[in-house]
Structures are given as C-alpha cells and as structure tokens.
C-alpha cells in the first residue's frame, strides 16, 4: 500500500561505498557533509578480490554501510498511464505489462522496482539480480553490514527536487557513463543513458538529447546542472555547447554529494 510506503523509511548510514565506473570510493559523514576517505582506482564493485574487500572492510570498519551504484548497470523507464491503479498488485501487473512491450529480456532476472512519481507517471528501475547477489555475497562473507544498496541517479532525483531553482535537466557523468534526466516541476519525464569518455562526445550526445526533448515534449528546457563524481573534470565542452542553446547552468555545490542519500 502506498500509505505504508510513505510512513516507512529505511535507516540511513553514516558511510557509503560508491561503486563508480571502474573505481570505488568510500564516503564518510564529516561535519554534516560526506567526504571521500578512500578511493580504490581500477576496481569494480562487481568484481572484488579478497585483498580489495579487506581494504574496504578496514576502511569501513564494523559500521553499517550503504552501497551506491552508478547507473551503468541500471535500466530506467518512465511510463505514463491515464490512470494508475491504487492496489499494488494491479499496479505491478500494469507496469510489468508495459515493461514487456519495451524490454525484451526476462524481467524475472531483474530486481524490478517502480515508483509513482506523478499522478500519471511511474518510474521503473531494473537491476540485474545476479549483480546484486554478487555484491551481497561478497560483503556478507566478510561480515559487512550493508543496509542500503541504491542508485546514484535516483538519489540525485531525490536531492535535486529540494533545490531552488530546480534545473530542467541534469547530466550525471561518471567517467564513461553519462545519464541525462529531464524533469518538469521536479518530476522526471525523460531519462537517457549513454556511454562516451570524451568530452566532445558527451557534449554532442547531450545536445542531441536536448534537441530530442525540445521536439518531442511540450517542455522546453532552459536550465541544467552537471553532476560528476570525478571532481577533476571540468566538462567545459558540454557547457559551451549548452550555452549555444541558451541554457543556463544551475551550479552544484561540490561539497554536497548529491548522488548519495541524504
């Protein structure tokens, strides 16, 4: 039931392991903000060795931990319905039916969660069960208490809705993987994910996506934010391209890790 969902919240942790694109970062809450305490380069959270997990455990200790994964292995869909059923079962059937039309694989192999984000819209999130079990098995073996496993894009959507002003879209860039989320009144209506590590490629894809949204939806985006876990990159090329489209940037406070649950 939706009502119970509203009243039940999951416990938050004071530290998160971010599973990025070929790197892992450990974030700990220091004076209200999350700060990186350790980075494991060239490591994938889906493929951890004994030495790596030892290192992570040493860094995290026995404290309850959360794992935030980037959107590389997630599949997002936004479905619009005339009317969304109130009953959870009927809602699931409806979403599954719609998902089967656009998703050729076996849904059973995926952890499928969906959320009503609007009176008519549902955000569906798919993540491979095998990958989830892989992470859980490793962390369970080492006795690490992982009480949260979520997605960076979902958390950005959650955090960005509190901003003033809320950007019309944001670009989440994590090395090779980029995801663009367009929203209207903080409700997402279009999500696109693409790969590309060169700034020019990312800029081209972003412009292409913006033009697509302009042509396909009634909403004309005019503001954006760039969120990247890799603070070293400037993404000037993306900014230049968007400036040509008369887009204004809503700057993100780099101290606030918006891809982590707050």
């Amino acid at each position, binding site marked *: 039931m939706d009502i119970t*969902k*509203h*009243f*039940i*919240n*999951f*416990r*938050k942790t004071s530290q998160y392991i971010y599973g990025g694109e070929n790197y892992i970062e450990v974030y700990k809450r220091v004076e209200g903000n999350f700060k990186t305490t350790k980075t494991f380069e060239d490591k994938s959270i889906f493929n951890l060795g004994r030495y790596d997990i030892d290192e992570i455990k040493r860094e995290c200790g026995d404290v309850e931990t*959360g*794992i935030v994964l980037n959107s590389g292995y997630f599949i997002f869909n936004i479905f619009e319905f005339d009317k969304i059923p109130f009953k959870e079962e009927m809602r699931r059937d409806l979403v599954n039916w719609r998902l089967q039309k656009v998703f050729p694989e076996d849904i059973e192999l995926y*952890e499928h*969660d969906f*959320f*009503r*984000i*609007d009176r008519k819209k549902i*955000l569906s*999130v798919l*993540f491979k069960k095998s990958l*989830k079990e892989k992470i*859980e098995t490793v962390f369970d073996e080492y006795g690490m*208490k*992982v*009480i*949260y*496993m*979520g*997605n960076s894009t*979902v958390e950005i*959507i*959650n955090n960005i*809705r509190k901003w003033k002003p809320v950007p019309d879209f944001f670009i989440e860039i994590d090395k090779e993987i980029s995801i663009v989320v367009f929203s209207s*009144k*903080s*409700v997402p209506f279009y999500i696109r994910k693409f790969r590309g590590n060169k700034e020019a490629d990312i800029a081209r894809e972003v412009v292409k996506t913006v033009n697509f949204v302009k042509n396909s939806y009634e909403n004309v985006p005019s503001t954006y934010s760039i969120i990247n876990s890799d603070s070293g990159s400037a993404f000037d090329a993306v900014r230049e391209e968007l400036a040509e489209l008369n887009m204004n940037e809503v700057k993100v406070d780099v101290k606030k890790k918006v891809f982590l649950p707050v």
Partner: protein
Amino acid sequence: MMKIKYNISKHKRIDLVQFFLYCFVVLVLSVLFLFIGIKNLSSKEKKLREAKEQQELYRTKLNYISKNTREYHREINAINKKWRNKVRFSNSLIAAKTYDIIGKLNVLEELLPSGVYIQGISFKVDAKSDIDITVVADSYPNLFHVYKNFSKYDPSIVSESESDGIFTAHIRINLELKKKNEKK
C-alpha cells in the same frame, strides 16, 4: 513529488526511530481527535440539555399564556355579552323614545271618514307591532270606507258586528311610519 525510496539491499532496515515517531504522532493525533470528539460530544450534550431546559421553560410559559388567553377570552365574552345586553336595552330605549305615537294617531285620524269614530285603540311601543283599533260607524258604507282607507296598511278584520244600526269593527293594521330622515 514524493521521495523515491529505492533500496534493494536484502539487509535493509526500517528506520525504527522515525517509524515510532510517526506512530507517536499518529497516536497523539488520534488521542487529540478523540479528546476533541469527546469534548465536542459533551459540549453538544450540554447544549442539548440547555436547549431542552429552555424548551421546557418556553413550553411552561406558553401554557401559562394559553391559560391566561382562555381566561381573557372568557372575560371578554362575558363583558361582550354584558355590553351587548346593555346596547340592546339602550337600543330598545332609543326605539321606545323615538316611537311616533302622535304621528300614528294623526294618520289614523286622517284616514277615518266622517261618521266613523274610534272606540278603542291598543298598541305596543314597538314600531313593527300591529295596532288594534275598534271603530264604530253609523253606516256600513262608512265602515267599508274605513277598510278601504286602511287597505294599504295590511288590515285584518278581527270582528265585525251591528247593533241598532251602529256598525262596530275590530281591525288590526300594521302601521309603520317612514322615518323623517328616510323621507329625505
């Protein structure tokens, strides 16, 4: 938009502090509503009781007024009756006072032909009552002349006799004089 609570961890734990806080808030609100409800009910009951008391008071007042009204009506009727009698008596007095005896006698005298005399007359002081006249005539044609003269006053011959050439008749007429102002 509501927060998207996405957590696929199999070890996810409910934030009990927040949950119990919600429960506490719900409980407090429930108790508050219950309290307000009871208070409202009791105040409504009190108001109802007061209204009933007021209603009873009004009913008593109404009964008292009704009773008084009946008594007043009775008194008014008695006074009315008394005054009506007085008025009727006054009217009869006025009628008696205004009864035109002389006028009637004048009419009778004018209608009597020569050789005919009134032997007896009786009447009531009432404009509408009949007048009984006993007349004597020296001849029957004279008596007949009397009948003829009184014909317009609806005469009725009560008795008629003749003795030694004297004709006696008892006539009843209804002589109503027109009032002077009516003439005008």
